[in-house]
């Protein structure tokens, strides 16, 4: 038979009535609280019995305390004198129990009790405010990225889910703050008017969804970037964050054993965790940008060469359509570059460049991007967006002119007009994807070449 039970109990920290009732019910079922943290509560099996619990707050206590302060001990003594034995405490929350039928409650003045809860909660709420503000800044940044280039944004799965998380987290925290203040205002007024303590209601503590959201964010990020170096980077990033938390907990446990002071514990945790996080993140960022590192995020360049005092790169990526597929050429120095490739559950986008070397610019170049919306409702959005990007980049002088789509074997085709002159850039809408392709300005695209484009890129 199990003698220890670990439960997740989602109570808001100020919900003293909720916690008391829950613990009394547990004792009747034969489970006595032994230890509590923000998320998990440890129960020990006991003979089922009727017990009274009292949850109080000690505002001067801190998360960094390694042992109760003398003042806190004096408070415990007073409580014990009135029949209340300390069960456990976590930072400011203090939980007492009593087996007496009607012990004098620990708090007998509602005004003082509300004020005590509030001064304890105020400390706790600082984290809420910081997370709400950081989350909102994060969300606004994502929103700006979305409006700058919606297709690129939607094609990056990790961005999509991070945006969702960065909105959900501050919302949940703000709801918690709002719920608390609604209670506090009412409780303060009632206590002052008729000396009654308004019960704290509700069991839920939405904030506790936050870690789940963050885990979801990391998992989604890893899956959406699978088979790329980003996955390893994401895993290292998550390990640094997780490692920092573990380190903080270990220091706290060790300091508690050594009975070190709160100040030393706080300093040590802050210094060591910041050091580990900044060293870890620094090394990670350095590795991403260091071409010799295995984490080097940029594509390996096949060749680096100097021309006219400038350094150029030649890529040898496997691109879906090459100039050689369209026309005969004896030039062999081309750079084939996949500028970006992103795929999410909503959109897949590949951006490709084929360029001659800087010393052979007389040879033609080819640029194209292929956008594949994964849901029908995104098709028109992507089509309009691909045109709007030019407008944003080149101004109102850009126009799209509908052309005959049949030689392209497409549903619709457009040619881009810039300052009343036709360019060699086309927007071709196939059944399932949209291709934007730019040929060299003097390239006369033949019907045969259009068909090859359709075969190679159209879907």
């Amino acid at each position, binding site marked *: 038979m199990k003698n220890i039970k670990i439960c997740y109990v989602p109570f808001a920290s100020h919900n003293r009535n909720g916690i008391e009732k829950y613990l009394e019910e547990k004792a009747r079922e034969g489970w006595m609280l032994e230890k509590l943290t923000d998320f998990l509560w440890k129960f020990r099996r006991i003979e089922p019995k009727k017990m009274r619990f009292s949850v109080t707050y000690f505002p001067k206590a801190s998360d960094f305390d390694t042992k109760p302060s003398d003042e806190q*001990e*004096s408070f415990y*003594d*007073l409580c014990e004198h009135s029949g209340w034995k300390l069960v456990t405490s976590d930072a400011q929350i203090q939980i007492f129990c009593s087996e007496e039928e009607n012990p004098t409650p620990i708090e*007998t*003045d509602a005004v003082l*009790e509300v*004020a005590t809860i509030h001064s304890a909660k105020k400390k706790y709420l600082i984290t809420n405010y910081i997370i709400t503000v950081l989350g909102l800044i994060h969300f606004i940044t994502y929103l700006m990225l979305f409006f700058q280039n919606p297709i690129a944004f939607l094609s990056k799965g990790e961005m999509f889910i991070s945006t969702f998380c960065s909105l959900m987290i501050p919302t949940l925290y703000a709801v918690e703050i709002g719920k608390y203040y609604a209670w506090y205002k009412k409780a303060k007024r009632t206590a002052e008017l008729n000396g009654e303590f308004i019960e704290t209601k509700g069991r839920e503590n939405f904030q506790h969804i936050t870690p789940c959201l963050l885990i979801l964010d990391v998992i989604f990020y890893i899956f959406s970037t699978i088979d790329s170096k980003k996955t390893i980077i994401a895993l290292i990033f998550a390990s640094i964050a997780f490692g920092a938390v573990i380190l903080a907990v270990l220091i706290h446990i060790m300091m508690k054993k050594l009975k070190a002071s709160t100040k030393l514990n706080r300093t040590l945790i802050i210094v060591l965790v910041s050091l580990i996080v900044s060293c870890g993140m620094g090394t990670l960022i350095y590795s991403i940008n260091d071409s010799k590192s295995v984490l080097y995020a940029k594509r390996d360049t096949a060749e680096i060469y100097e021309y006219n005092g400038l350094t150029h790169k030649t890529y040898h990526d496997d691109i879906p359509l090459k100039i050689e597929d369209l026309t005969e050429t004896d030039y062999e120095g081309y750079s084939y570059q996949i500028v970006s490739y992103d795929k999410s559950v909503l959109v897949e986008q590949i951006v490709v460049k084929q360029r001659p070397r800087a010393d052979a610019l007389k040879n033609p170049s080819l640029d194209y991007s292929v956008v594949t919306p994964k849901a029908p409702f995104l098709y028109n959005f992507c089509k309009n967006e691909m045109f709007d990007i030019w407008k944003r980049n080149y101004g109102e002088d850009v126009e799209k002119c509908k052309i005959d789509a049949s030689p392209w074997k497409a549903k619709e085709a457009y040619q881009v007009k810039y300052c009343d002159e036709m360019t060699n850039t086309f927007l071709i809408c196939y059944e399932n994807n949209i291709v934007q392709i730019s040929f060299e300005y003097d390239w006369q695209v033949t019907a045969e070449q259009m068909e090859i484009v359709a075969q190679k890129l159209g879907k």
Partner: protein
Amino acid sequence: MARMKFQTLTEQMFYTLLCLKDECYGMDILDRVPAMTNQRVNVGSGTLYTLLEQFLDAEMIQETKVEGRKRSYVLTDKGKEILEKECIRLSAQLKDYYSIFGKGENE
């Protein structure tokens, strides 16, 4: 702020201060108040702890002994003055009551 706060005293404040006419420990107050009031007034340990802190801040009481976790307190002149004011206020209230209803009715 402190003066505003203790312009009138709650029953629990009043009896706590009353107990501190002579030096005593917090725990003694917990026992003396119900004994003094025939169990009519009880001060909870948390409430007492907060009150003692507030009285110390307002210099209405002072710490006399700290023996590890055990602390004893005694009323200061300021505390006595506030208690006396409260007593005068309560007496005036009582006097007004008697002048309306007469003294005999309650006895």
